[in-house]
């Protein structure tokens, strides 16, 4: 098993005429957390989507869990958990039905679905359609979807945005630092984000402006990114 979970070199991804990601180079070891800061449009979501194999790199190289994304993306799917801005579930179906659908796509048992629903505190409402859920409940269901197949690498786009403290506590062992998984997390919160991470990455206009150990980064440096 490779020591480095994520290894990017000169990663570039274009969109239309501009570069959403330009020449991004970094490496992340297993079990560590990378927090990504940057203003809107900096490329945070694009970075996550490339790592999730949803987008292909246009230039440079990207190795995730030991596989080259450009050629072996299929090998990595099923070992990555992605939590984006959208829950990626159908509003007209219930949480249980949605999770069972994803379970079938990942070869996961239905027992695990039920167990996860318990853990995120949705067991009682598991059979109600998603459109009847509050935002926090939808987010919890999305968390369950993201970790359903026990992924080695978590890609989280502002995961606690819609969660109240109690809910955030519930999901912490699944997607938080204590889960022990390798994580790439985007955040707009300098204090919380840095405290929760090992390495900090600052993006602006698709380029790396800051890359250092989280402990060594100050709030002012993060603030500079947003200027």
């Amino acid at each position, binding site marked *: 098993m490779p020591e480095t979970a994520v290894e990017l070199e000169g990663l570039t991804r*274009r969109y239309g005429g501009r570069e959403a990601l330009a020449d991004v180079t970094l490496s992340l070891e297993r079990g560590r957390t990378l927090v990504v800061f940057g203003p809107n449009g900096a490329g945070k979501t694009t970075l996550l989507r490339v790592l999730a194999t949803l987008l292909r790199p*246009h230039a440079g190289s990207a190795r995730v869990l030991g596989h080259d994304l450009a050629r072996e993306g299929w090998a990595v799917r099923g070992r990555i958990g992605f939590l984006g801005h959208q829950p990626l579930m159908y509003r007209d179906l219930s949480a249980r039905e949605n999770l069972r659908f994803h379970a079938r796509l990942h070869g996961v048992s239905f027992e695990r679905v039920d167990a996860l629903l318990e853990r995120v505190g949705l067991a009682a409402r598991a059979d109600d359609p998603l459109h009847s859920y509050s935002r926090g409940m939808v987010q919890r269901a999305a968390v369950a979807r993201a970790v359903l197949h026990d992924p080695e690498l978590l890609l989280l786009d502002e995961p606690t945005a819609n969660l109240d403290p109690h809910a955030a506590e519930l999901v912490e062992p699944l997607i938080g630092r204590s889960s022990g998984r390798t994580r790439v997390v985007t955040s707009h919160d300098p204090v919380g984000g840095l405290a929760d991470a090992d390495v900090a990455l600052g993006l602006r206009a698709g380029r790396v402006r800051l890359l250092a150990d989280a402990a060594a980064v100050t709030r002012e440096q993060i603030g500079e990114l947003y200027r």
Partner: protein
Amino acid sequence: MYAPRLPVWSVATLIALVGGFAVAAFVAPMDADQGFMQKIFYLHVPLAIVALVGFVFAGVCGVMHLRSGEPLWDLRSYVAIHVSLILGIAVLITGAIWGRAAWGVWWEWREPTLVSFLIVFLLYCTYQPLRFSIEDREKQSRYASVFAIVAGAFVPLNFIAVRMATPYIHPRTLDAANENLPGWMLGAFLLCLLGVALLYVTLWKYEMAHKQLTFRLRALQRRLGGEVPTTRSAAPDLSL
């Protein structure tokens, strides 16, 4: 640099076309029923054949693009469809003129080549709007290639279906033409066919060269740091 021997192609095209039409107009025997207007046939049918082959060629370029991921193949496909569409307009106009002269009607349903051509033409008219409405360049190229392949496979199937559906009462001109093309008529026809084929290739090369030059210019402008206004064109932009 992008179009070696373009002058050679142009001259060859000119010679073949002029020669073909000269033979058709002056040497080939006049058609007994239709008179001089029948000579439009020497223009109309080759245009149709070449345009249809062009569409199929665009489909092949689409396959190459999907297999290799090279944007140049997408450009070749785009230009092929573009030139075929231009020829296509000429096909429909000359077909209408010929129909009017020969049978007194502007449109003839019993001419399967013409009918299937109209359907194909309508289909390919959606190609540029389709490209325009997909903003991401790579996705646009991919989807355009899929379209070119599906439409390219459609051309022969459509022709077969329409031909089978057309009642054989009215003498089909292409058939009739193939059967009763004695001597000089056949020669004139083949020469015109060659001429139109060369015309297609020359137009294709001209447009390819023009586009590639434009993209090179834009890429250089970008490199110099200037603002490059993106023009309204559905063509795949190779400068990116």
